[in-house]
């Protein structure tokens, strides 16, 4: 009974619209807990789906699911405190959308049918739009508008891509269900030209959602305007969901022996994303946008790693997991900072070291993690990607990769130094008490990254290997 994992939050989400505010918060945490329980259960049992044509438990899906579930649970704890502090008007809407969002993302991870996956991914857009619009300001309206429109257009392209893949089946006279696993098995017989065209469209489509440059344009707006817990969810898990679509399509490509084609495209998009992130990180003025661009960078890294294949693909999966953990922690931290200083501008924030020491620990930890310092997992992921790229002989690409990472680090570090240590001009009084439930979720997320950096449980490891071996990854 796989479907319950996404049906449960769906129903609970609908239900939450009818609950009073205070109950809603508890309900949210509860939903997170239930979902986590269900996901862990799913992980352990790996049951068959009721609708095996549409849903199945795949290793890559499981990985994403468990990350989503864990993140959502922690974020829901934070959200409960956050809502108490921030006094949103549309709290009910927010909580309900969070749960629906969770439900749709879960559906993405569990769907195996290419159309169903499309439906689920489009549904995530719709479910998350209210989250971005929470503040009801002009800016958030603009961000939501861009988000909905760009993502819808992009994802429409993915739909076209899936249609083209089915065309490739027609041309190649393959008659199997439209599920990723079946398609991978029959990939050799698919018509390569239409498959390629389909892949391109899917890549652009889901790439829009994932935040690959130049389709990333909605991302910084949406992340900066959404309330921080929502940004954490968007950046931490939504991007992964979109990546899942690309990953699975790439699997078909590799099975069809077109890995050169798909790999090159992924590498190019990855590099473009990293460069785009570098462009805007250098002189960024808002810290939430900074984090958003850093997400674009990391998505670029992941796409690059996937394109490299081999040990690079393994590195990409590690980056994916750890990026979710670290970036969501960073976004939650940014929520604290935003509430503390009341401004999104880097200029107006400063001297976290003195004013918000506990937040600073989470902030610096997250920064170190996201820039690829040990003991956080992105370090090892990036290392694998780089050595993998050398192994496969992508010298030019890896040189660009390394240099732009350096530029990004220089830009990022500058802002972080400013925010953490530099004095703010006037005596800012911090309007936030650093309470445990707004600090510990971040700490736990970072600690998870550290633990997973040092030690990966066998079952998780096996799942990762199952996932990457399908895209020609390994070690």
């Amino acid at each position: 009974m796989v479907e319950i994992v996404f049906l449960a939050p769906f129903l609970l989400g609908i239900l939450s619209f009818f609950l009073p505010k205070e109950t809603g918060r508890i309900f949210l945490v509860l939903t997170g807990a239930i979902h986590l329980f269900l996901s862990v259960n799913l992980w352990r049992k790996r049951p068959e789906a009721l609708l095996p044509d549409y849903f199945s438990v795949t290793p890559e899906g499981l990985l994403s699911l468990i990350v989503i579930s864990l993140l959502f649970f922690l974020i829901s704890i934070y959200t409960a405190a956050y809502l108490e502090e921030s006094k949103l008007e549309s709290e009910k809407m927010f909580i309900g959308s969070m749960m629906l969002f969770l439900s749709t993302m879960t559906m993405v991870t569990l769907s195996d049918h290419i159309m169903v996956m499309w439906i689920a991914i489009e549904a995530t857009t719709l479910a998350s739009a209210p989250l971005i619009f929470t503040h009801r300001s002009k800016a958030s309206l603009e961000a939501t508008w861009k988000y909905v429109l760009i993502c819808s257009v992009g994802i429409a392209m993915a739909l076209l891509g899936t249609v083209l893949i089915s065309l490739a089946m027609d041309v190649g006279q393959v008659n199997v269900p439209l599920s990723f696993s079946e398609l991978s098995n029959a990939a050799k017989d698919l018509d390569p030209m239409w498959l390629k065209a389909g892949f391109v469209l899917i890549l652009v489509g889901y790439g829009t959602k994932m935040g690959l440059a130049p389709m990333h344009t909605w991302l910084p707006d949406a992340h900066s305007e959404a309330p921080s817990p929502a940004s954490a969810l968007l950046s931490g898990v939504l991007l992964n969901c979109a990546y899942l679509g690309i990953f699975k399509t790439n699997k078909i490509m590799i099975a069809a022996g077109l890995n050169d084609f798909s790999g090159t495209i992924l590498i190019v998009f990855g590099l473009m994303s990293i460069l785009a992130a570098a462009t805007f990180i250098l002189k960024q003025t808002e810290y939430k946008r900074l984090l958003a661009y850093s997400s674009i960078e990391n998505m670029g890294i992941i796409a690059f790693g996937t394109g490299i294949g081999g040990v690079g693909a393994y590195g990409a999966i590690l980056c994916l997991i750890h990026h979710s953990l670290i970036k969501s922690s960073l976004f939650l931290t940014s929520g604290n900072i935003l509430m503390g200083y009341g401004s999104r501008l880097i200029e107006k924030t400063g001297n976290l070291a003195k004013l918000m020491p506990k937040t600073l620990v989470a902030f610096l930890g997250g920064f170190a993690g996201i820039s690829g310092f040990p003991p956080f997992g992105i370090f090892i992921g990036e290392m694998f990607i780089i050595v993998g790229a050398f192994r496969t002989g992508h010298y030019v690409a890896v040189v660009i990769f390394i240099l732009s990472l350096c530029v990004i680090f220089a830009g990022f570090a500058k802002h972080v130094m400013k925010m953490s240590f530099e004095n703010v001009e006037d005596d800012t009084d911090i309007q936030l008490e650093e309470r445990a439930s707004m600090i510990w979720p971040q700490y736990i997320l970072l600690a998870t990254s550290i633990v997973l950096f040092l030690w990966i449980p066998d079952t998780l490891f096996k799942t990762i290997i199952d996932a990457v071996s399908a895209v020609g990854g390994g070690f």
Partner: protein
Amino acid sequence: MIHSVDTILSLVLLSVLFAFASNRVTVLIKVIAFQGIIVSLVPLFTSSELTMGSINFILVTLAIRGIIIPLCIYLAIKKVSISKEVEPIIGYHASLFAGLLLIFAATYVSHRFNIPSVSESLLLMPTAITILVAGMFLLMARRNAIAMVLGYIMMENGIYLVGTTFSTRTHHIVEFGILLDVLAGVMIMAIMLQNIKQKFDNVDTLHLRNLKE
């Protein structure tokens, strides 16, 4: 040989040109509704066998694409009494010319590829490509937010048309899911339109370019 569906599809092509040239939002909505109806009816002509299920599905599609979606937008406009000008970025004449070029190119491209279409229709593929790209054109060339939403719907229609051209293997439930998604998307966009109108007093996207870099 002229396939029966080609007749109505040529009307769709014409409607694209019409949409490009028109400066009124209401006209555009009507064009979209017309396209929605035609596009939903195409499977009737192309499918080899018609089951009860598929006929039902066609009816539902017709209802959503041809009626509910345009109505949604129309109501949204009505409610907030938005100015009717589409505010083109690319002028009407140029748009018209682009539309002609587009139709030509679409025909050329679809003939280049040897697509084993399930139907013998000559115009199906060119029309699909045309409205797909035309939708994107509207998205890019019209400042009016409503026109952009309409462009998106047109694009979706195009994709649907491409899908019906050759995909017979998806179950209706899946297609229905897709349809639902589109519907929900359009509804959310309609809500956004209302909000834009409330916040900015009109739906010109000129106001929506403050977030950058």
